[in-house]
C-alpha cells in the first residue's frame, strides 16, 4: 500500500547515491545503515558500504569522540567504493553534524534530528550557537530539520514504554524516512524487525510503529516534496549476500577446510581491525575449522606453525603491531618450509597508531621484515569480496609451495562490505593436500629432497617410518639435519629464493583496464582498487589515454609487469601510505621512476581527487 499513497509526490530517477548515517554510538547508526543497505540490495542495486566507528569504546554520550557513522553507496551501475562525498547526510545530533558536515557535498541533502540540538548537546559538540540557524549552512545544503525525538515519542504515546526505551526507537524513524525517500517497500523491514525483536514483542511493535511513522512523515508532511528512485543495476544473476572483508576471509578459510576435507587451524590473538576474522571462524567448528586464541601474537603464529607441522592448514590473523611481533616466527616458517597463511588487516601506523583507521603501510615489512634472507609470497586483496578468493588462493599457494604466505588486507576492506555473488562450489579453486607416505631416498625419508619445482615433501606425525626432525638452524639440503657447512648454506639460501620466484607460474599477468598504452598508467595494489578503478573509468569515459593496472600479487610480481610499465608515458602510484609500492617498483624495474600520489588520512582515496590529479598530468 505504501507505494500508492506515495503517488502525489514527484519521483526523480538517480543513478547512484551516497548516504551517510551519523549519530551517537548509542543511536544505532550501524544498524540503520546495514538495514537500509539490505533494502537497496534487495532492490537490485550494486553497492558498497563503510562503517566509521569511534576509536573509543564508548565515549560520553553526545561527545565528538562518541560519533559513529555508516556510509552506503548504492546505484544502478557497478559500484567500486562506498563513495567519495555523501549526497545525503543523516545527522542524529550536533556532535555528528560537527564531525561529518565537511564531507557532505555542497548542494547535498542534510537531514538532522533537530530534537537533539539542545543546549547541552550543542555545548558537548563545541557549538557556540545552533548551526541549523546559520545562513551559510542553509545556502550550501538542502536542510531538513526533523525533530525525530518528538515524532518518535508521539508515535509511541501510550505504548507504555519507558522514555529510555522510546528514545532507543528513533533510529527506525530515520530508517523509515529513508525508505520513503528512496521508494523502498516496507514489508521486508517490518518482518526483519519482528524477527530481530522476537523475544520482546512490545519493542518489535514499537519499532515497527516508529518505522512506519518515519515513512509516513516523508509521505504526508510538506517537508519533502520529492522522492527518489534508484533503479536496479545489471548485476550478474544469482544469489547474493552482503559481506565484509573480514567475514570473507573467514569464509574463505572455512571453504578451504570443506573443499580439502583437511583441518584449517587458526592461531590468533585479537587486534583491531582483524579480530572479526577470529570471531567468525570460531563459529565454524562443524566445518573443520579449529580456532585457538593464543596468549599473544607470537604464540598465535607459533601454534599455527605447530599445527601445520602436524598436518593441518595453519593460518594466523593480525594487524600491524602483530605482524611486527610475528617476524621471527615467519622466519622459522620460511626455513622450515611449512605451509602457513598470515593475514594482516592493515591499520594506521606506526606503532599503535590509529587502530580504527585504514592504511596500506605494511607492504615493505611484509616484503622485507625478516632477518636473514627470508623471502615469501605476498598477496593483497582488492575488495571485500576478493578477500574470500584471496584467502583461498593464499592457502593454495602455501600448500602447493610449502611456504608461509602473507595476505594483506586493510581496515577499509575488512570492515567495508559489498554484495557477494555466492559461487558455485564446483567452480572454486582446487587445493590438493598431499602428505608423504613413504621413504623418498634409499629407503630413508629426506624432508628436504625437493621436486622439480624445488618444493619439499610434507610428512606428518602418525606416519610410521617417516619420523624426522626440523628446525630453525640451517639444514642439510637433503636430510634436514643441522649443517654449518658454508656452501650448503649458500645453496639453501639460493634454493629457497628460487622456489619463491617459481611461484610466478601461479601469478596471472596484469591486464590494464582502459588504454593498453598511452599517457598515464595508474598502478595500484590492495584496498585502493575501487577508488583507482573508479578514477580510471571516469578518465577513460572522458576519452583520456589512461590505463589502470592493479597488483594483487606483490611477490612474485606478474611476469609481464615490466613490459606493461614500459607502455605508458607516466606511471602514477596512488597509495594510502608514504610511497611503499613506488619504492618497491623502483627497486624491481631499474629505470622506472613512478610518480607518487599519497594520502595518509586514515581514509580511502577519493575518486574525484585522484582523477583530478591525473588530469594535471595529461
Amino acid at each position, binding site marked *: 500500500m505504501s507505494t500508492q499513497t506515495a503517488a502525489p509526490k514527484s519521483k526523480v530517477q538517480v543513478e547512484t547515491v551516497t548516504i551517510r548515517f551519523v549519530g551517537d554510538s548509542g543511536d544505532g547508526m550501524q544498524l540503520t545503515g546495514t538495514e537500509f543497505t539490505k533494502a537497496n540490495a534487495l532492490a537490485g542495486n550494486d553497492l558498497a558500504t563503510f562503517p566509521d566507528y569511534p576509536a573509543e569504546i564508548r565515549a560520553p554520550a553526545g561527545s565528538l569522540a562518541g560519533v559513529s557513522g555508516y556510509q552506503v553507496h548504492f546505484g544502478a551501475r557497478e559500484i567500486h567504493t562506498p563513495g567519495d562525498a555523501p549526497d545525503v547526510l543523516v545527522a542524529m545530533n550536533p556532535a555528528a553534524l560537527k564531525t561529518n558536515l565537511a564531507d557532505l557535498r555542497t548542494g547535498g541533502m542534510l537531514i538532522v534530528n533537530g530534537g537533539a540540538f539542545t543546549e547541552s548537546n550543542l555545548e558537548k559538540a563545541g557549538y557556540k550557537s545552533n548551526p541549523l540557524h546559520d545562513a551559510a549552512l542553509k545556502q550550501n545544503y538542502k536542510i531538513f530539520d526533523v525533530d525525530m525525538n518528538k515524532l518518535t515519542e508521539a508515535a509511541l504515546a501510550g505504548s507504555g514504554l519507558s522514555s529510555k526505551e522510546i528514545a532507543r526507537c528513533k533510529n527506525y524513524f530515520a530508517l523509515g524516512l529513508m525508505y520513503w525517500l528512496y521508494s523502498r517497500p516496507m514489508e521486508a523491514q517490518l518482518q526483519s524487525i519482528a524477527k530481530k525483536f522476537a523475544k520482546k514483542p512490545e519493542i518489535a511493535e514499537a519499532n515497527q510503529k516508529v518505522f512506519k511513522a518515519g515513512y509516513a512523515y516523508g509521505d504526508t508532511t510538506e517537508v519533502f516534496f520529492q522522492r527518489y528512485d534508484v533503479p536496479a543495476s545489471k548485476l550478474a544473476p544469482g544469489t547474493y549476500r552482503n559481506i565484509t572483508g573480514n567475514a570473507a576471509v573467514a569464509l574463505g578459510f572455512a571453504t578451504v577446510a570443506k573443499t580439502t576435507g583437511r583441518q584449517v587451524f587458526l592461531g590468533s590473538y585479537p587486534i583491531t581491525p582483524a579480530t572479526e576474522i577470529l570471531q567468525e571462524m570460531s563459529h565454524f567448528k562443524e566445518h573443520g575449522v579449529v580456532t585457538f586464541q593464543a596468549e599473544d601474537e607470537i604464540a598465535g603464529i607459533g601454534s599455527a606453525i605447530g599445527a601445520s607441522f602436524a598436518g593441518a592448514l595453519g593460518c594466523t590473523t593480525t594487524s600491524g603491531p602483530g605482524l611486527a611481533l610475528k617476524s621471527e616466527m615467519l622466519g622459522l616458517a620460511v626455513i622450515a618450509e611449512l605451509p602457513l597463511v598470515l593475514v594482516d588487516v592493515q591499520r594506521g601506523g606506526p606503532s599503535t597508531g590509529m587502530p580504527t583507521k585504514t592504511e596500506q603501510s605494511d607492504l615493505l615489512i611484509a616484503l622485507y621484515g625478516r632477518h636473514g634472507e627470508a623471502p615469501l609470497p605476498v598477496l593483497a586483496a582488492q575488495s571485500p569480496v576478493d578477500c574470500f578468493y584471496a584467502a583461498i588462493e593464499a592457502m593454495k599457494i602455501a600448500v602447493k609451495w610449502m611456504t608461509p604466505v602473507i595476505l594483506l588486507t586493510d581496515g577499509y576492506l575488512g570492515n567495508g562490505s559489498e554484495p557477494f555473488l555466492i559461487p558455485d562450489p564446483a567452480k572454486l579453486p582446487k587445493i590438493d593436500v598431499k602428505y608423504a607416505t613413504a621413504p623418498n631416498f634409499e629407503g630413508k625419508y629426506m624432508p628436504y629432497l625437493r621436486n622439480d619445482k624445488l618444493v619439499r615433501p610434507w610428512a606428518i606425525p*602418525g606416519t610410521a617410518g617417516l*619420523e624426522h626432525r626440523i628446525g630453525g638452524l640451517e639444514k642439510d639440503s637433503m636430510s634436514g639435519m643441522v649443517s654449518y657447512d658454508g656452501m650448503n648454506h649458500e645453496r639453501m639460501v639460493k634454493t629457497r629464493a628460487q622456489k619463491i620466484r617459481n611461484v610466478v607460474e601461479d601469478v596471472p599477468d596484469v591486464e590494464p583496464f582502459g588504454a593498453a598504452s598511452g599517457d598515464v598508467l595508474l598502478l595500484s595494489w590492495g584496498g585502493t582498487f575501487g577508488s583507482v578503478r573508479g578514477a580510471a573509468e571516469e578518465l577513460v569515459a572522458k576519452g583520456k589515454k589512461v590505463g589502470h593496472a592493479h597488483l594483487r600479487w606483490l611477490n612474485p610480481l606478474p611476469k609481464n609487469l615490466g613490459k606493461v610499465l614500459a607502455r605508458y608515458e607516466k606511471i602514477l602510484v596512488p597509495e594510502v601510505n608514504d610511497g611503499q609500492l613506488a619504492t618497491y617498483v623502483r627497486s624491481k624495474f631499474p629505470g622506472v621512476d613512478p610518480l607518487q600520489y599519497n594520502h595518509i588520512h586514515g581514509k580511502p582515496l577519493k575518486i574525484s581527487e585522484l582523477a583530478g590529479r591525473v588530469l594535471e598530468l595529461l
Partner: protein
Amino acid sequence: MSTNQAVNTALPVYTKKDFESGVDPRWCPGCGDYSIINQIQKTMPTVGVARENIVFVSGIGCSSRFPYYMNNYGMHTLHGRAPAFASGIKVSRPELMVWVMTGDGDALAIGGNHFIHAMRRNLDLKLVMFNNRIYGLTKGQVSPTSELGKKTKSTPHGSPDYPFNPPALALGSGATFVARTIDVEGAHMGGVLKAAAEHKGSVFVEVFQNCPVFNDGAYTFLTDKAVKADMLLRMEHGKPLLYGKDGKKGIRLDAQTAQLEAVVVGENGVTEKDVLVHDAKRDDPTIAFMLANLAEKHGFPTPIGVFRDVRKPTADELTWEMIEKAKSQKGDVDLGKFLAGGDTWTIK
C-alpha cells in the same frame, strides 16, 4: 576434518634403541643432559604410544638439541617458543603425545609467557625443564634460576635478581602435574618420567642438571654422598614426609602458625603419625606449594618426586568436545548452503 593418518593399533614391542635417532649427541663430556636422554629413551618403550605418534618439541639451548637425538617426530624451534608450537600440535592432533624439552632460560626467561599459559590451560603437554641454573649454549650468563648474587659472565658483580622457584611458578600457573628430579638420580628420574607420561594434562618436570662447563657443582649441596640423605626429601603420594639416613627426620605442620617444621621422630614426643602425609592427588595446590617452598627455608631438605598429580579435563579435550558437539548438532553442512548463509537475495 582432522588430519589423522591411519594410526597403527597393534604396537610393536619397542626397545631403547628404537628411540635413538642415530645422531650422536653433541653435549660436552659429563653434561647432565646425557643422563636425561638416557632415561627418556628408556621410558619411551613403556608408555604404550606408537613411535610415530610421539612428538618432541624444543626451543633453543643445549637442552633444546634434544629432539635431534630421538627417533620420533621433532621440532627444534625458536628460543622460548616451544610451548606455543606444542600447543598448536596438541590442539590440532589431540591423539599425539607431545613432549616439550627445554632449559631454564628457554622455559622461564624468554619463554615464560608460553610456559605459564600452557600450564594454566591444562593442555596435555609434557614439559621437561633441564635446570642447570645458567645459559649453557651462550656460554654462561645469568638465568632466571641462578641464585641471588650469583657471579656469571653477564653479572660479574653478582646477580641482583631473585630466582624463580620453578615448581612454585608452575603451581601458581595452575599446572596439574608438577615434579622434580635430578640428573644423577637415574632411577628416580625414570619413575618421575613414567608418571609424567601417564598423566593427562599439563606436566612440569624440573630436572636439576649439572653443567660441568659453566656452572659445575650447582647441585653438589644436594647430591654429595655426605649430605644427600639429610638434604633430599623423597616425596611419595600417601607416604609420610620422612627423610634422613635412618628415615627418622620428618616434616610436620603446625596448625597454630600454619607453618611446616622439621622434626625428628622419636625426639621430644614426636611420633610418625605427627609427620605430614604427602597428598599429590589433592585439587587444592596449597600443600604442593608449601613443599615447593620448603627448601627456601634454612635447615629444610629439598623435595624431589611428584608435588602434584591431579586429573582435570584438558584444554584439548574440552576443545574437541565442543567441536564434536557442533558437528553432531549441525551435521555436515554442504558447502553451497554454507556459502549462502546469512541474509541473501537473488538477482534474476
